[in-house]
């Protein structure tokens, strides 16, 4: 009996050691922390065939990426893809990223203005942390057959739309409404008192708007389900989701609001304890090749910062893009500047109060 227990223990330890060993011997893997669609199977297979490096993809979002990396002090992944406005504050607060060695990046493949902008916005203490990858906008997705006259975010709160619209209870909604109400939240980023005053006005508007809300959507799939079924006729959402719906139902279109669509750029950023930096640089240079970037555009529905990839992108998406943006509205896109630490606590309370407010 006694012997049996001990033998069992020995076997258990042996298995444990074996499992632990397996983890460390697979050196040539790239653990990628990214968004859905940014690492399609086809591209991963092409990369594996070319370099012999296995890619492990973990799908995530901005907050989740920061939380995951914060919990481990920046280990567990070799390459992350946070949005550029969220890199600097997370780095300052939690020290989870590693500066990027730009000499290892094939800069000729990247649109120069975007590279420059991302480098500037993700600079902390003179070191650059990110290079751009995918960019896109959020604006309005409208079912033109069931709703008319929706041109800006505030129109979602108009009459005859009771229980018919949807948006997220997250910071882009606050920012979008602030712009639509004629204020400039980005200019107030450095001035907490002004920002708080802006938020107070937006809070009031969003509480008054609550009767129009069908449900606050929490993920892209929930949003698409609401609009596809016609349960919601207008929503604030991402361009890619809007174009996807447009392909299924031409009545649903993605439009840039009159106050300007909100533009974001998702980056490549190295976690502080990345274990395979070389593979990370190889992956970046690989996916920024125009023909590979076009495949990612097809999968994610968003365009990339890769130079010359447009001509590989399928015609339908280009048409949808042209339907949503003209040179003027394209110029009016409001790009998110880096979020200073502390603002999000303020926004959080406003969002909580909106959620808690009774519908009138």
């Amino acid at each position, binding site marked *: *009996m*006694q012997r049996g*227990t001990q033998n069992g*223990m020995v076997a258990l330890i042996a298995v444990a050691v074996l499992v632990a060993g397996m983890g460390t011997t697979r050196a040539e893997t790239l653990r990628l922390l990214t968004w859905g669609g940014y690492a399609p199977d086809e591209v991963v297979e092409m990369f594996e065939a070319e370099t012999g490096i296995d890619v492990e993809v973990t799908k995530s979002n901005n*907050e*989740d990426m*920061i*939380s995951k990396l*914060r919990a481990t002090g920046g280990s567990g992944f070799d390459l992350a893809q946070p949005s550029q406005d969220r890199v600097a504050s*997370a780095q*300052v*607060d*939690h*020290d989870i990223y590693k500066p990027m060695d730009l000499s290892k990046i094939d800069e000729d493949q990247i649109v120069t203005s975007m590279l420059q902008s991302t480098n500037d916005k993700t600079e902390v203490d003179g070191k650059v942390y990110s290079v751009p990858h995918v960019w896109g906008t959020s604006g309005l997705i409208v079912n033109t057959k069931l709703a008319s006259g929706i041109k800006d975010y505030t129109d979602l709160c108009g009459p005859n739309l009771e*229980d018919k619209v949807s948006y997220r209870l*997250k910071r882009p909604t606050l920012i979008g409404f602030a712009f639509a109400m004629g204020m400039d939240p980005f200019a107030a980023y450095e001035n907490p008192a002004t920002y708080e005053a802006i938020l107070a006005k937006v809070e009031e508007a969003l509480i008054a708007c*609550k009767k129009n*809300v*069908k*449900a*606050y959507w*929490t993920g892209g799939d929930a949003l698409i389900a609401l609009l596809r*079924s*016609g*349960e919601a006729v207008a929503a604030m959402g991402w361009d890619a989701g809007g174009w996807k719906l447009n392909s299924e139902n031409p009545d649903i279109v993605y439009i840039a609001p009159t106050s300007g669509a909100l533009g974001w750029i998702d980056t490549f950023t190295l976690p502080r304890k990345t274990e395979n930096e070389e593979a990370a640089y190889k992956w970046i240079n690989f996916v920024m090749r125009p023909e590979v970037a076009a495949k990612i555009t097809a999968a994610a529905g968003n365009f990339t910062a890769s130079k010359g990839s447009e001509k590989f992108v399928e015609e339908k998406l280009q048409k949808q893009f042209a339907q949503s943006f003209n040179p003027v509205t394209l110029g009016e896109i409001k790009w998110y500047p880096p979020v200073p*630490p502390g603002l*999000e*606590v303020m926004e*959080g*309370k406003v969002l*909580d*109060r909106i*959620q*808690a*407010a*009774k*519908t009138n």
Partner: protein
Amino acid sequence: MSTPPQIRLGLLLLFAPIVFWLALLVILPHVDMLLISLRVRVAPREYATSLANYAEFFTEPLYWNTFARTAIMSVTATVMTLLIAFPVSYYIAKMVRGRSKTFLFLLCLTPFWVSELVRTFGWMILLRETGIVSSLLLWSGLTDARVELLYNDAAIMVGLVYTSMLFMVVPLVTTLDSLDDSLVEAGYDLGGNSFTVMRHIVIPHAMPGIASGSIVVFMLTLGNYLTPKLLGGKDSLWFTDQIYTQFITRFNWELGSAFGFLLLVLSSAIVWIGLKLSGQTLSATVR
């Protein structure tokens, strides 16, 4: 006389897994969480010890209300689960025999073969405006327009009760099974009607089962995240959702940890009050 050393080693090995499990997965994380909850961020990467996070919970009515709402809804869900589960359990334990008993018990178990997420999505498909129930009502002419049954507190309640059923049925069936039928017969023989027999014989006997079932259901409901999040509407608030938000979307681990501790303490207090009010003890319910 002391115990032989090999028996002590055996006992030690026997207890090792549970001790490690408790220490590594329960006690250590809680100690860490307690420490985190007692600090506040003063500047980037700089923290000071303070009770501010706990003060925040009691001074900001929003958080306090969310907790109260969650607790009240959980108690309601527990009572409703009990009201529905008791007749079901009584029927399974006392009215049917043999194979149909096993069959009915299995029927209660079947929904738990799929994950909670799938079950919740099932309810979403049934209840949504373009969903099955709404279409059926429209087709049968009972309503002349589609009705939205999802995204309200009633939907949350349905989901919670459904999710908790099994955890109430199992302890109830076990305790009711142990009730000797002759006691019930004696009750009738002595002139009792169904009501007095139920009140003076069946319920007192089932009390430990009711208490343990209620504790499990209450704790599960209070700690549920998925169901209120998916089925709840634009006004719905749930305390666990608040904790998740603090941790994940606000990066405010300090406040989130404090909330976690408050949830633990306050829910334990509610269970304690419940036990006191019903005259039960924790040791009797686990027997």
